[in-house]
């Protein structure tokens, strides 16, 4: 049996970060990946005629500045959008609102007084997001982790919030569990602006804008913008791939060994100590430290097995809400489609179809009852396909469809087509040439994501990012500090604090925790 200091399971971005960082400390690290390439849910897949692109992660959000600095990623070619990404709130009847980068620093298409109110509201939102921002890079204080340093960090965070003044602090306490609908309706009147903010607060989370605590989704998003590398988003054209490639190169340079098509079937555990892993193909590797970047549900129930865990913990893990609620539609078009007013689409924009708050809420209502939304909301990015490809001049539209049920009432057989057509006909209304130019479509539903990417429920965040599963409750009480009841086993995936998108702090925090805890 081949032996390493550390085995990392899953070559998603968090797995790559942990592997690279631990290898940099001189440990011999093996990274095991079930798929045939690295990147996890951000990996590139061949989509059409040899053309490769990330099938799932189109969301060109930011990446943590701590990750970039810690791993020295800026020496690789990370692609960012220098001017930020503007969002067009699609509105078929009226003129579309154009939401400036940095979450609406400027907005075109609304009245002056409205913008003034928005400016104040936005400032308040960003102020309050500081709570998440400062907690994100901390190892949560929990039952196993109560060091003086972690407690002091928590205290300082609370003190900083309080020092913003009594009024602001009270305002935070008033707002923090509110729904985003009440907050925007208190202040704003432009329907598509309210729709856009509601959409951004709830994308990827099983909440509607009128659900209590949906404001937290927005705070979470804003905290990531603030803590992103130079407050910039990854480029729409290849940004995600540049990040994943940089992580891979960094891991490779630090001496990480990779095994692809190496799906782990179980951990080797004796007397609550993990000593190695067993692969589906029969191979075995041993290591003193094993780090799982896959979903906590898969880690605990499949790899560790309920037999090796307290009933209290398996109860909590099984009670996690981890059914995905977003699907991904990829469309390859001959060329950038023209708008109905015969202007060209700007490929550097993000397009969101969420015409009103009510539309987002009624979409969520359908999800609640496992039905397809009648008028689905979505976000869309266009990326140009590079000239080296045979598809020269073509573009890919990456579309995230919000509120797609994991288990649909009835079956998916015909509904898949229905969902796809609904989205396409919405775009069609506003870009009449769209349908004509379609070369290729593929729709990946949550249960298909589950199977293809080996993630329980097919959830982007591995488990819901909601108030009862954040910080020391993420993924659940007792395992929130990246360690587990199995000695030698750590977790570092999106299911751990702070989780979320391509941010990468889960991996970095876990690596720091492991470095602090264990010797080689």
């Amino acid at each position, binding site marked *: 049996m081949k032996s390493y200091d550390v085995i990392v399971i899953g070559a998603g971005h968090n797995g790559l970060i942990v592997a690279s960082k631990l290898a940099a400390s001189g440990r011999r690290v093996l990274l095991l990946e079930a798929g045939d390439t690295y990147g996890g849910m951000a990996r590139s897949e061949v989509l059409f005629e040899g053309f490769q692109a990330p099938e799932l992660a189109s969301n060109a959000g930011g990446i943590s500045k701590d990750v970039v600095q810690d791993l020295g990623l800026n020496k690789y070619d990370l692609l960012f959008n220098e001017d930020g990404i503007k969002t067009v709130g699609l509105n078929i009847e009226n003129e579309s609102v154009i939401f400036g980068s940095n979450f609406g620093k400027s907005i075109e298409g609304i009245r002056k007084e409205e913008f003034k109110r928005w400016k104040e509201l936005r400032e308040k939102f960003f102020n309050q997001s500081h709570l998440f921002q400062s907690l994100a890079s901390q190892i949560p204080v929990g039952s196993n982790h109560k060091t003086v340093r972690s407690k002091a960090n928590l205290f300082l965070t609370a003190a900083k919030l309080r020092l913003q003044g009594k009024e602001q602090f009270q305002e935070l306490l008033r707002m923090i569990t509110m729904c985003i609908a009440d907050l925007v309706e208190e202040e704003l009147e432009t329907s598509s602006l309210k729709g856009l903010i509601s959409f951004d607060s709830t994308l990827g989370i099983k909440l509607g804008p009128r659900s209590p605590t949906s404001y937290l989704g927005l705070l979470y998003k804003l905290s990531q913008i603030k803590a992103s590398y130079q407050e910039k988003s990854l480029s729409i054209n290849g940004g995600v791939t540049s990040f994943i490639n940089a992580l891979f190169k960094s891991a490779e340079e630090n001496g990480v060994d990779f095994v692809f098509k190496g799906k782990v079937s179980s951990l080797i555990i004796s*007397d*609550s100590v993990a000593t190695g892993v067993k692969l589906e193909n029969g191979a075995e590797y041993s290591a003193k430290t094993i780090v799982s970047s896959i979903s906590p549900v898969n880690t605990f*129930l499949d790899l560790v*097995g*309920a*037999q*090796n*865990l*307290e*009933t*209290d*913990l*398996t*109860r909590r893990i*099984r009670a996690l809400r981890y059914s995905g609620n977003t699907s991904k539609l990829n469309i390859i078009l001959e060329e950038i489609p023209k708008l109905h007013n015969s202007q060209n689409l700007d490929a550097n924009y993000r397009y969101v179809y969420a015409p009103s708050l009510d539309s987002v809420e009624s979409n969520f209502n359908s999800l609640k009852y496992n039905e397809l939304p009648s008028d689905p909301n979505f976000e869309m990015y266009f990326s140009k396909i590079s000239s080296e490809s045979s598809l020269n001049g073509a573009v890919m539209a990456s579309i995230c469809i919000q509120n797609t049920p994991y288990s649909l009432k009835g079956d998916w057989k015909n509904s898949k087509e229905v969902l796809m057509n609904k989205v396409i006909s919405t775009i069609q209304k506003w870009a009449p040439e769209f349908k004509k130019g379609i070369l290729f479509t593929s729709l990946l539903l949550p249960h298909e994501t589950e199977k293809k990417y080996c993630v329980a429920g097919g959830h982007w965040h591995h488990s819901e990012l909601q108030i009862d599963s954040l910080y020391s409750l993420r993924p659940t009480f*007792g395992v929130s500090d990246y360690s587990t*009841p199995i000695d030698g086993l750590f977790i570092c995936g999106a299911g751990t604090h702070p989780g979320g998108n391509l941010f990468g702090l889960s991996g970095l925090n876990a690596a720091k925790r492991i470095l602090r805890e264990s010797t080689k």
Partner: protein
Amino acid sequence: MTQLKEKKDRDTTFSKPLFRSPFYDFFAAQETEGHWYDWNGYKSPTILSDEELEYFSIRSTCSVFDITPLNKYRIVGSQAEEFLNKLTVRNVAKQNVATVKYTLWCDQEGFVIDDGTLFRISDNDFRLCSQEKHLPWLIDTSHGFDVEIIDESKHVCGISLQGPTSASLLRLLGVNGIDNLKPFHLFQTKISNIPIMISRTGFTGDLGYEIFMKNNVANKFIERVWNAGTNHGITAIGYNALNMARIEAGFIVANIDFISSDHAIRPNRCRRPDDLGLGWLVDLNKGFFNGKKAILNSKLEDSEAFKIYALEIDGKEPAEGSVIYYNKKDEVGTVTSAIWSPMAKKSIALAQLKLGSSKSKMENLWVEIYSLKELQYHKLMKKVSIVKPPFINLARRSACPPSNC
């Protein structure tokens, strides 16, 4: 039809409707006192005719007690043993087929959830009997094991025959093999063609048997036993008599002598097996089980917890509910169960005490008893000595074959 049946099975004289065990009609016919209580949702007797006579039937003839209200879980499947090894603290791999073991199960903090008896009927077939209801816990624990948990509480009923003449009564009833049945062993047999499972177990510290059967044969069975037992002094008993016998035997009861961890609201009320004097049940050398890590860790620290002790108290007053003092002034705990023991001829008690690690405190313990005598309290301060349970030790309990009397 179902409605009619419901009505017959339930008794509505209590604030909530209570179930009636299949033996209810039999016990109700023996009853002259009318003391009933709610045991696990069943209308059960506290006293049927005379508490003392009932107690003495346990110790000198043969008593009949209805154990139907116990929760009975059937655990069947190819991984039943592995599942039970995760659930309980004892090593089930070491439990032979056709035996019964007293056992405990704990939560992740190593705190005792409940105790019970585990019957190994065959390799992959077990019955777990417990005081409290645990179906959700059993089902949640079974995740990942090939095992089926069946709550047979409402389908299987049971009778406990306890006392020196119980073995001869069963012999008279034609139960072959009663002579070879060792304590904590079981076998399946028939009495007048009624299929039963009989085990040499009980809650009295005496010679005795527990017999389980299907509900539909209950009446026929009890009639047969009752008629055969006339010359053996057979007596139907209620809970009070049994309680006296179990205190003498030094057995503890969940939520009387300790608070089950899933009932406890205050965190310092939870108890580990060691605190209950049952540390010997825990097999730390077997594989993983619920609470193992916490129990191991607790052994490393100096325990400040309350522990259960068996006490003998000077004088004749039973000390139920009394406070125990060190040096007559510092409170160290409370009595959870106490009686005047007719067999030991002593005032005996089970108590939870916080004595810390110093042994010296044990020598200077006192109990403050408020004894009500003709409407006036007499406050007594009596010397307490810690003893090793049981308070009585009867040779007939384990004699094999049991004597013919």
